[in-house]
């Protein structure tokens, strides 16, 4: 039987990462400057621009176009079949028209409802308000994961600064509801690209926590980037109230590929037997390389799309998302916790 740290080390060496967990807190304390980063695009289809008039205009346009033009290839031969096909397609398009109107009404209703919720459950930057909300719940997740979308720089609360702002808020809410670990998933991994953005993030989280908890009693935290095997602490002590992990697409399928590569290298040199590759071994390696399985995943995207989230880790994760919601707001956060407290996991039973 092979000792598992060997595999992990090999994976990290293959990826040009330090074998030892590197603590850059001290370095970060010295450096404090900003460099512009080229923006990385989010995955397609995470962004929606819905405007009722635009949609209706376009639908009418498309409806006319496709009912009279041949924009859809049809592989039928006889004229009768062709007529039946277009007749059916026409019915479908008419249905779409009705659905489009319905969806827009629903969209507006949801937006208003969310605004209402945001107003009624505003945390007011006070941990005690959050505490009161959380105390009512029968259980809270130990490990919380949030899926954030990188918005365009021009959007409200968009770009890198918006992302940092969102993480700051999430951290404050998580600490107030005594969650021990927060895993932030962002498709492009923009924040884990450089030390500087990490340092920025630390600075802003500290500032924001100061607003919540008062400047004399700022809770301690650490930010970890599993992909680079880096960690940064909020101050010198290593006892933290919350650990924040920043993960991205690379921690999902590509990490599984790396693991496979390393295993096959070890198998070639006869250091690993084929029968030793088990679910438990892979699980152990991935927990070390990426992090724990989250109990709850909150997606702050308008539609449910997992965007290449690490597949191994969402086995039993409760998934929550609010349709048509694009922002990170407290109402969504607390509703996700409420849903989690009502769910019951019984594996296989």
């Amino acid at each position: 039987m092979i000792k598992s740290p060997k595999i992990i080390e090999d994976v990290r060496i293959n990826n040009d990462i330090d074998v030892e967990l590197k603590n850059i807190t001290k370095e970060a304390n010295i450096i404090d400057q900003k460099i512009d980063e080229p923006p990385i695009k989010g995955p397609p289809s995470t962004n929606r621009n819905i405007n009722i008039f635009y949609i209706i205009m376009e639908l009418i346009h498309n409806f006319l176009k496709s009912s009279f033009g041949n924009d859809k290839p049809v592989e039928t031969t006889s004229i009768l079949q062709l007529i039946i096909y277009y007749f059916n397609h026409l019915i479908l398009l008419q249905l779409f028209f009705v659905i489009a109107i319905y969806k827009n009404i629903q969209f507006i209703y949801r937006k208003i409802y969310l605004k209402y919720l945001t107003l009624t459950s505003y945390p007011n930057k006070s941990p005690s308000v959050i505490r009161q909300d959380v105390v009512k719940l029968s259980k809270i997740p130990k490990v919380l994961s949030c899926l954030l979308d990188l918005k365009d720089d021009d959007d409200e609360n968009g770009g890198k600064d918006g992302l940092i702002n969102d993480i700051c808020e999430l951290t404050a809410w998580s600490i107030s509801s005594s969650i021990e670990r927060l895993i932030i998933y962002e498709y492009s991994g923009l924040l884990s690209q450089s030390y500087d953005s990490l340092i920025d993030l630390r600075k802003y989280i500290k500032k924001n926590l100061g607003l919540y908890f008062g400047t004399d009693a700022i809770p301690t935290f650490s930010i970890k980037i599993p992909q680079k095997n880096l960690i940064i602490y909020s101050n010198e002590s290593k006892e933290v109230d919350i650990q924040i992990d920043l993960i991205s697409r690379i921690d999902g399928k590509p990490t599984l590929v790396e693991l496979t590569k390393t295993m096959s290298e070890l198998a070639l040199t006869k250091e690993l037997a084929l029968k030793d590759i088990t679910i438990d071994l892979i699980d152990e390696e991935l927990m070390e390389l990426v992090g724990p399985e989250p109990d709850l995943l909150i997606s702050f995207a308008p539609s449910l799309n997992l965007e290449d989230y690490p597949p191994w880790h969402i086995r039993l994760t409760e998934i929550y998302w609010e349709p048509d919601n694009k922002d990170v707001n407290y109402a969504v956060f607390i509703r996700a916790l409420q849903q989690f407290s009502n769910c019951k996991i019984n594996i296989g039973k």
Partner: protein
Amino acid sequence: MSDWISTFPGYKNLLSASKKIIGKIISTGSVPSHVGIIMDGNRRYAKSHKIEIKEGHNLGFETMANILELLYESGVKVTTVYAFSIENFKRSSFEVQWLMDLAKSKFNQINQHGFLCEEYGVKIKIIGNLKMLPDDVLVVLKETEEITKNNTRAVLNVCFPYTSRDEITTSIKNVVEETMRNPTIEINENLIESNLYTKDNPPVELLIRTSGTYRLSDFMLWQAVSPNCKIVFINQLWPNFKPWDMIKILINFAFEKYWYANENSKFVNTYYDSEDETITSDNEYTMTKAI
């Protein structure tokens, strides 16, 4: 109310005829080529309706046949159903035995009478860790695969017994074994993907879970995280899941595809003739934003 209607003569025919018509209509739009279904809630249904658990599983099977009929009418190529998880072996031995017997009897029925397979040309494939099954069940399942192997119109994957982690592990194992024979192979995501149980099927585009549980429960994890896969959670228990609910999901799927595809393709056609998919999709992204 609906019970009362169903006693009328010709109700069944009417139902399947309307399914055919609706299926035809749906099939003119975009249809997911591969649908995954987690059929959850048979036991809760049995408990809440005060019937025996095995009756609940029986009803679940009927629902499945009902839904599959609609899916194949609408032009879905592959359906994967989560029939039995490896974790389900943890249930009482009594119930496991009963589920095995149910599977055996149903597959026997398929072997003898054809079920949907003849009518729709369905090829049945059993996927999962077959080593864990008792021999007598395995024989029946193999026979079904053998009988239906020449059907080409549609595929039904039955996950029995299956977990996604097991699938991924098996795939990794196969890849490692392959590289031991031929060390020059480049390991990448596609290679792992082509060693999954669903290797011959198109990518999963729609994943449905019933019974109001918002978890994937170890089903098609690798396939479900792909950005092209739409996940739908439904509050009904599986025996309550009616073809009407499926119709709504399919039309919704077609609508979203139609709407967003049109929005994107417009820009691809007008501005780019590039064949590089990643570049176009990135550009689409910025272009759609620009409006």
